[in-house]
């Protein structure tokens, strides 16, 4: 049984049912039933047209489930106004727009996308986000209810879809499913059906970061900073693919924040050693990013890059212009003061930064930095 095939067919099948007029929640249940049936039947009797098979079975399940008179009347009405069949690619894309609908909260949009487009089970999603299965089931069914009145013929907002995929990639940790890999798979699917430079930018960004993932943590789970990573462990094929996608996107001259972020990631990936990083160009890309997003976090990252390009004093000057309550502000200050030679102040700031760090790996990392300066001989 090819689970990957099944999961790649799921959104298209679901899209067709919804387009035919099925309520989103009922359609989703019917597709899940069809998938279970496929797992049971296909090993013995593989269909010639897997997608057609799934649509037929899922549609039959949907009809069975809505057999009451009222439902039948409603169904006959919707069948009457059934639009001209469209390609499966379009249905899938519409489904992405639906799952990322602005009426959903970010966590609901993420859960619904993984379930309806990604084909993951509720249990898998619950485990990935470390919440009880019942909680995740409620989150998904609420999300389904929220979008059930939304027609699939409305043009969706690509930015919200990209935001959801970015969240899946960035915030998910690996449970039984690798959410980063899942985000890449889904983004590839969107990129195949939506011609938009920012989709390409996001895909490139994900590929380049994913390529360096193995080198980001030591075997004991501790963080390895970019400068100390073993660049021999970077996946060069994935980086090359990401850079190729990025260059094609940049050539279209419609810059957006994901392309700019990917360009920065590409410059890091391109350096044979940390010392050969082109920090001057990275600062230029951060200037673009500041122009595009005006995000304080981007300005903070820019201060780090300035510190590398023009020296720690310049970095500290850039940092001084920013609100010191920003996340990681203290960590950046500690690093720049260390590079500037003020080791006592740096050690003190590392301790302070560790107290504010949002995740355990960073807490440990910053505490080690402080300890390294405090115990030097």
């Amino acid at each position, binding site marked *: 049984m090819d689970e990957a095939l099944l999961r790649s067919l799921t959104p298209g099948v679901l899209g067709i049912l919804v387009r035919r007029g099925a309520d989103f929640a009922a359609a989703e249940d019917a597709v899940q039933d069809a998938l279970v049936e496929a797992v049971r039947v296909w090993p013995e009797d593989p269909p010639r047209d897997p997608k057609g098979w799934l649509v037929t079975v899922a549609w039959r399940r949907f009809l069975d489930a809505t057999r009451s008179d009222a439902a039948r009347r409603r169904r006959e009405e919707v069948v009457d106004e059934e639009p001209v069949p469209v390609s499966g690619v379009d249905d899938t894309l519409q489904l992405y727009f639906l799952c990322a609908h602005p009426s959903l909260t970010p966590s609901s949009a993420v859960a619904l996308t993984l379930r309806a487009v990604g084909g993951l089970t509720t249990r898998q999603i619950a485990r990935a*986000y470390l919440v009880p299965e019942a909680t995740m089931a409620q989150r998904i069914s609420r999300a389904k209810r929220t979008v059930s009145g939304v027609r699939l013929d409305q043009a969706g907002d690509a930015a919200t879809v990209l935001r959801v995929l970015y969240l899946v990639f960035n915030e998910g940790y690996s449970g039984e499913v690798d959410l*980063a890999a899942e985000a890449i798979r889904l983004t590839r699917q969107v990129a195949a059906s939506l011609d938009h430079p920012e989709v390409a930018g996001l895909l490139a960004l994900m590929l380049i*970061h994913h390529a360096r993932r193995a080198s980001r943590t030591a075997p004991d789970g501790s963080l390895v900073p*970019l400068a100390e990573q073993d660049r021999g462990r970077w996946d060069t094929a994935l980086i090359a693919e990401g850079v190729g996608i990025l260059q094609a996107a940049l050539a279209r001259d419609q810059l957006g924040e994901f392309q700019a*972020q990917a360009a920065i990631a590409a410059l890091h990936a391109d350096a044979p050693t940390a010392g050969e990083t082109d920090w001057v160009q990275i600062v230029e890309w951060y200037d673009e990013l500041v122009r595009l997003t005006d995000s304080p976090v981007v300005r903070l*990252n820019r201060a780090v890059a300035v510190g590398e390009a023009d020296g720690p004093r310049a970095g500290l000057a850039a940092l001084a212009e920013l609100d010191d309550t920003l996340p990681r502000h203290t960590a950046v200050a500690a690093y720049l003061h260390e590079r500037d030679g003020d080791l006592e102040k740096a050690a003190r700031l590392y301790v302070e930064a560790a107290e504010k760090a949002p995740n355990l790996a960073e807490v440990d990392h910053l505490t080690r930095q402080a300890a390294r300066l405090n115990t030097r001989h």
Partner: protein
Amino acid sequence: MAKYLLLKHYRGGPEPVCTVPMDQWTPDEISAHIQYMRDFATRLEGSGEFVDGQALAPGGTFVRYDGEGRPPVTDGPFAETKDLIAGWMVIDVDSYERALELAGELSAAPGQGGKPLHEWLELRPFLTEPPTITE
């Protein structure tokens, strides 16, 4: 999508508004208080924001490793101990603002006379996994 711990304290928080101990309330007032918290948890399950919740017994012991053999145990928490946790609830919400809102609601559980208890709740974020994209 961030997890927060809501900590209820028997004592150890800022000065409480209501200082009448629960054993001085009427049984109905106690039932109303407990029901409020159950309803709160049920509602959070429905909204997909509930992770976990447990109540803790007031008694407990301190345990320490002291070499091979049975570890020494002493009674505790001690009378002079500042902090004593009554229970917790873990929520998973979209924003810090939402976490504050929910903590405020939980703190409004009814006390004596059915009026909100105005109980102080400690709100603490969980440490997470590092994000994939950092630079």
